[in-house]
């Protein structure tokens, strides 16, 4: 991403303009990824044009519930957060880190660096934009850097999307992360759809974005277009399905590790790890070592892991977190509290995926509210450092 221009420029595209955008990105060598309908869900994958987008589809989400439904219009982005986030492209679920051979003089290690894909993401919502920034802090901005992630990230062209629909499990307004994309994009779309028109206000967030936009058939944005786009975002912000009171939450959770609510939620939690797989910020990984049958070479593969597995905390003598209580508490306390200590922000962006995709409908906003309602402070400090 290059530097933001000092003034935000904007234009309006129609459907043909959006098609031209997808083609322009493909022509610049990007692999264009966007939403499409597959397996009765919205997924992100390679798209060739507007015809691949989920025209006329929306989703109905709730705790443990996700259904696609027909809309009564032809909106292309008329749905909320899809089950997968962009994490699977920038921080892939399976990645070979290195290979090793038994040489004459000893082990010969070599990086498994493959050509860095150049992705263009079409339709990155504000919550997911924040999630990408959070993963940047974890994987790139500490003392050590995941170079492969950094290369994929640097190469990515981001077309953000200001949300026109809020799902029943959305709470980005509470987390200060949406529904309007704030910076960190190349272009940002707002879908403007009524009886008279189907257009997209496009805002420019980078020089690269400006260059692409300039090549597209467009018309200048009028004040009325900007006002219409602002109204879309405002309406979405008013329709959040959930809210989460974050005031003092960092201390509240660290001060309440023995709150009875953890036992109660553990009765429901299946430790299935779904929440961590769909979470756009969960970054945990494990590694596997695969060797060939002849024993001459091996490779180290990194895979997404979850703090909900028993193996996750295993040290000789047994796992540190033996119970569902310990594991759920770790996940939620990390997400909403210790993340601040570690990375200076919340680990939650309010996308609601963990609520939707929990098979028993555990709701992180409800759990946090329950602890807030009856805090059992044990006293003592909480991880100040």
């Amino acid at each position, binding site marked *: 991403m290059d530097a933001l221009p000092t003034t935000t420029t904007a234009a309006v595209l129609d459907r043909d303009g959006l098609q031209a955008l997808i083609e322009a990105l493909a022509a610049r060598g990007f692999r264009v990824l966007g939403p499409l309908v597959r397996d009765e869900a919205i997924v992100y994958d390679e798209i060739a044009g507007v015809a691949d987008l989920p025209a006329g589809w929306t989703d109905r989400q709730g705790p443990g519930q996700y259904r696609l439904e027909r809309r009564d219009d032809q909106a292309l982005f008329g749905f909320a957060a899809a089950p997968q986030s962009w994490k699977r492209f920038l921080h892939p679920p399976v990645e070979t880190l290195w290979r090793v051979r038994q040489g004459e003089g000893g082990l010969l290690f070599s990086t498994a660096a493959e050509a860095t894909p150049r992705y263009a993401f079409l339709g990155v919502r504000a919550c997911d934009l924040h999630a990408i920034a959070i993963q940047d802090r974890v994987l790139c901005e500490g003392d050590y850097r995941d170079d492969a992630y950094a290369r994929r990230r640097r190469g990515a062209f981001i077309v953000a999307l200001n949300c026109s629909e809020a799902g029943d499990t959305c709470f980005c307004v509470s987390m200060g992360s949406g529904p309007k994309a704030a910076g960190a994009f190349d272009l940002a779309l707002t879908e403007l759809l009524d009886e008279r028109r189907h257009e997209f206000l496009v805002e420019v967030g980078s020089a690269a974005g400006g260059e692409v936009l300039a090549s597209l058939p467009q018309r200048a944005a009028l004040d009325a277009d900007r006002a219409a786009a602002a109204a879309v975002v405002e309406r979405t912000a008013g329709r959040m399905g959930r809210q989460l009171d974050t005031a003092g939450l960092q201390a509240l959770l660290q001060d309440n590790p023995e709150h009875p609510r953890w036992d109660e939620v553990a009765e429901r939690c299946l430790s299935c790890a779904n929440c961590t797989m769909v979470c756009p910020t969960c970054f945990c990984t494990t590694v596997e070592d695969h060797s060939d049958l002849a024993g001459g070479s091996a490779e180290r593969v990194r895979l997404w892991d979850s703090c909900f597995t028993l193996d996750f905390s295993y040290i000789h003598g047994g796992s540190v977190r033996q119970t569902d209580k310990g594991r759920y508490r770790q996940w939620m306390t990390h997400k909403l509290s210790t993340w601040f200590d*570690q990375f200076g922000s919340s680990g939650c962006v309010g996308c609601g995926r963990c609520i939707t995709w929990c098979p028993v409908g555990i709701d992180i906003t409800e759990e946090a509210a329950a602890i807030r309602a009856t805090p059992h402070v044990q006293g003592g400090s909480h991880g100040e*450092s």
Partner: protein
Amino acid sequence: MTAPDPFLPQPWRVERRRRELIGAVTLELAPLAGARPDFAPGQFNMLYVFGVGEVAISLSGDAERGTTFVHTLRNVGAVSGALTALQVGASVGVRGPFGRGWPLAEAEGADVLLVAGGLGLAPLRPALYAILARRERYGRVVIMVGSRSPEDILYRRELEHWRRRPDLEVLLTVDHADADWRGHVGVVPALIPHAGLDPAETLALVCGPEVMMRFTANALLAAGIRPERIHLSMERNMKCAVGQCGHCQFGPFFVCKDGPVLRYDRIGTILAVPEI
């Protein structure tokens, strides 16, 4: 500037192997290329055995002497088992050193108490070497070692040697004595009230099983030592060692990068909570 890939091991070779205790060995590793990187007492390496896997092992040699990495480890699983079985000449992968070690600069001018439980003496040994190399900068130096039985005392000859030094107090205790044992019997925290420590002057470095460290910290607090002067070396599951895999989290801390040595005033509360 391109930083070296933190995930890529470098090839090292087993130079020496010494059997220490039943199931425990000391490996001395030399790099196949280049020199041994500098390390600080209390840091650790990730050691990789071909086709088996990788595990975090503390450095237990002298940081200021020699050209090898020295690791004392016990066979407690697949990877550590494969490591303890390696013979001289075998090739291993090494990443490291990682983490924050013992606060030896802060300890200057203070009385230093080192408390080890079992193999916990291994990560403390580099601290002791560093202190002895600049003995005049420290006050009283006391080392307490708890072991299961006299046969389980790690570095026993070295401890006997240190015991003869006039500037070092070595207190050994065992859980189960045999007929020849003339020393203390009991757990290591029980030694603390009788050591005549000056609580205002003492800084404590503690390494051992977590339960031993918890009881030791309580005994140190009871002796009047301030929580910010008690340092524990923590152990958690680790995959990456660079704060990116998430496994070693201990409350707000990543044991791999914020530790493994952590100050008691920062971790005392969570240390008391099961499953943090």
